[in-house]
C-alpha cells in the first residue's frame, strides 16, 4: 500500500508536475478546439456529397469514408509525420496531427451525418420543396434539425472518441497532456504524473460518458 501511494499518488511529485500537466492540458484542449470543428466540417461536406445526384461525387465520398475508417488513426498520423518530409514538406507536429485528425474524424462524422440525413423520410424534403423552399433551405431548415437529433448519441460518442484520440499526438512528440506526463515520469522515475493525466482525462470526459449512457438507455426504451 505504501509503495502504491508513493509510486502512484505521490503528492510531492504531483506538485512538481502540476504546472507541466496544466500546460499539457492546455495543448490537449487547443488540439480539440482545432481538430473537432475541422472533423465536423469535413464530415458535413462528406454527408452533403452523399445527397447529390452525381454518382461520381457520391461514390468518392463513400470511398473516402471507408478508406479512412479502415485506417487506425495512429497509422495515419505516423504516415503523415514520417512520410510528408520525404515530399519536401516537414509539418510541425501540430500540423501533422491536425491533418491526420481531419482525415480520420471527418470520415466518422461524415458517416454519422449521412446516416442522420438518410433517417429523415424523403417526404419531408419533398414537402419542404413543394412549399417553395430551395434545396439548400429545405436541407438546412427541415432535414438537418431532424437528422442531427436522430444521430445525437452517435455524435456525442464520436466526439468522446475524438477527444480521447488527441492522446496519440504524444507519439509524434506534440506536448499534449499524455506527452508531458510521460516526460515528467521519465525525469522523476515516478508514475504519479501519468496517473494524474489519466485522472484529468477522466474528469474532463466524465460528463460526456454519463450523457452517452443516458442516450443509450433512451435509444432502446423508445422503440
Amino acid at each position, binding site marked *: 500500500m505504501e509503495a502504491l501511494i508513493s509510486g502512484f499518488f505521490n503528492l510531492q511529485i504531483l506538485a512538481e508536475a502540476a504546472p507541466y500537466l496544466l500546460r499539457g492540458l492546455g495543448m490537449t484542449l487547443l488540439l480539440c478546439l482545432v481538430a473537432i470543428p475541422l472533423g465536423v466540417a469535413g464530415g458535413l461536406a462528406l454527408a452533403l456529397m452523399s445527397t447529390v445526384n452525381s454518382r461520381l461525387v457520391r461514390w468518392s465520398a463513400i470511398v473516402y469514408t471507408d478508406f479512412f475508417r479502415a485506417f487506425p488513426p495512429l*497509422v495515419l498520423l505516423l504516415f503523415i509525420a514520417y512520410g510528408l518530409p520525404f515530399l519536401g514538406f516537414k509539418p510541425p507536429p501540430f500540423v501533422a496531427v491536425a491533418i491526420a485528425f481531419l482525415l480520420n474524424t471527418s470520415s466518422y462524422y461524415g458517416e454519422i451525418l449521412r446516416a442522420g440525413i438518410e433517417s429523415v423520410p424523403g417526404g419531408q424534403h419533398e414537402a419542404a420543396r413543394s412549399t417553395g423552399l430551395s434545396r439548400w433551405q429545405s436541407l438546412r431548415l427541415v432535414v438537418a434539425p431532424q437528422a442531427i437529433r436522430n444521430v445525437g448519441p452517435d455524435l456525442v460518442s464520436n466526439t468522446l472518441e475524438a477527444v480521447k484520440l488527441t492522446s496519440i499526438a504524444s507519439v509524434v512528440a506534440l506536448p499534449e497532456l499524455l506527452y508531458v506526463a510521460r516526460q515528467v*515520469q521519465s525525469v522523476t522515475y515516478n508514475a504519479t504524473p501519468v496517473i494524474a493525466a489519466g485522472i484529468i482525462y477522466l474528469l474532463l470526459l466524465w460528463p460526456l460518458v454519463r450523457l452517452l449512457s443516458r442516450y443509450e438507455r433512451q435509444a432502446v426504451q423508445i422503440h
Partner: protein
Amino acid sequence: MNNLIDTFFNLAVMRQYLPQVIQGMGVTVMLAGVVVAAGLLLGFVLAVLRSLRIKPLNVLIVLFADVFRAVPALVILIILYFALPSVGIRMSGFVSAWLGLSLVLAAFAEEIVWAGILSVPRGQWEAARATGLGVGQCMRLVVLPQALRLTVAPLTSRAIVITKNTALASVLAVGEILYQAQAGYAFSYNPSPLTLGAVAYLILFIPLVWLGRWVEGRFAWKR
C-alpha cells in the same frame, strides 16, 4: 513522380520488409481476437451481474465502465506497461495491450448490453417469473434473447473500433503491423515499409468496415 514511387513504393525495400509486416499481421489478428473475446465476455458478465441490482456491486460496475470509457486507451496501456512495474507488477507488452484493450471494450460492452437488458419491459420479467421460471432461467430464456438482438449492431461497431486500437500496442513494442512497419522505416530510412503497413491494415480492416455497415443495417437499434 519517379521520386514519389521510389520513396513510398520502393519495391526493393518493400520486398525486404514484407515478411516482417506479414508476421505483424499475424500478431495484430491474434491480439484483436483475444481482445474481442475477452472484452465482450467480460462486458456481458458485468451487465448480467448489474441486473441483479446489488447496490455496492453496481456502484463498482458503473465506476469501472465510466473510468474505462473516459480515459484514452493509450493512457491505459501506458499505465499498465510503464507504470505498474513500479509497484512490482510486470507484464509483457502483448499482455498489457490485451488487458488494457479488453478492459476498454468490456466497459463499452457492459453499457451496451445493460441498455439492451433495460429495454426489455418489466412485464416480461414479471410474466416469466409468474410462470414459475427462476431468476437465472428468466434471464437466460426470456430477457437476454430479446436484449441481445438490440445490442448486435453497437457491439459490432465497438469491437471494430477496438481492433483498430491494436495499433496502439506498437507503443509498447508489441510486434504488430505498425511496429514492424515503423522498424522497417527506421532501418531503411524509407517510408515504403509504412506504405506496406498501411496496405496490410486496409486488407484486414476494409472487410470489417463493410461488415460493420452491413450489421448496422441488419440489426439497427430500433426494431
